[in-house]
């Protein structure tokens, strides 16, 4: 399975699950396809990892307005308390990536597991991941705001080939 094929499964899950959870249609865009480095300074970030047959680091960058829409909608229409906002965004990312990795596990018939997601207010802690890899890139726009997803992934097969 290639990085592009893995990315396609995540792409489907971002679209399907976002619609189900917060009733927002994410439209895939081709922005920054060549420039894979994060360019947006403002917004919120999440990191979630998979371990097992597929080893991946998935970094999501949410615009301020999409972030607000996600946490408000998931909290029944009002903004959650400050100390809980990260937990709402964590859950959004956890559900989408769990959906994707479940599909991938069933496709390859080999297990991978998800980490607990981490929330970041700035992108600095994530730069080294993006700088040291060549991530697959997904970009979305919607009425509620923008989302960019960076997926750095390899499979056990890739790692065996590298070792040989």
């Amino acid at each position: 399975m290639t990085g592009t094929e893995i990315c396609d499964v995540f792409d489907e899950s971002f679209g399907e699950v976002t619609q189900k959870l917060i009733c927002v249609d994410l439209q895939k865009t081709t922005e920054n396809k060549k420039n894979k480095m994060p360019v947006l300074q403002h917004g919120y970030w999440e990191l979630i990892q998979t371990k097992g047959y597929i080893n991946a680091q998935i970094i999501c960058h949410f615009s301020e307005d999409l972030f607000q829409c996600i946490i408000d909608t998931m909290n029944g229409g009002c903004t959650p308390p400050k100390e809980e906002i990260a937990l709402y965004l964590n859950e959004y990312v956890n559900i989408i990536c769990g959906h994707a990795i479940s599909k991938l596990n069933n496709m390859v018939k080999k297990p991978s597991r998800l980490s607990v997601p981490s929330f970041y207010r700035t992108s600095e802690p994530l730069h080294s991941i993006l700088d040291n890899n060549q991530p697959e890139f997904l970009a979305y726009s919607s009425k509620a705001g923008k989302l960019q997803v960076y997926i750095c992934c390899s499979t056990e097969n890739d790692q065996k080939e590298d070792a040989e």
Partner: protein
Amino acid sequence: MSEITIMVVDDSPFASKQIKDIVEENGYKVIGYAKSGEEGIRLYDELHPDIVILDIIMPGIDGLETAEILMKKNPKVKIMMLSSLCDSGTLEEIKQIGLKYLVPKPWENDVLLATLELLNRQ
């Protein structure tokens, strides 16, 4: 007939609130929440709920390990697992520890309620 009591163990307030809303409209009573497996085990000893709803992916000990500990304490404990991870391998792991029910996140309310009903009849 007394209400069937539920404890929810999930680090997400989103999941806990949604579950409370749907189950309490349907005759169950949520008597406790825990945000981690460790807290869930402590709370189970205090509250003795009829049913435990348990997330799999949590900080600290995960839901599968928490379920195993609760089952050692009380082999008759009724547990419904809840997770975004719902592949055949995860189902197999759940069966191996002796559990039957895994509801995928995001869940359909009727699936959640039907699963609780099955669990309650056990």
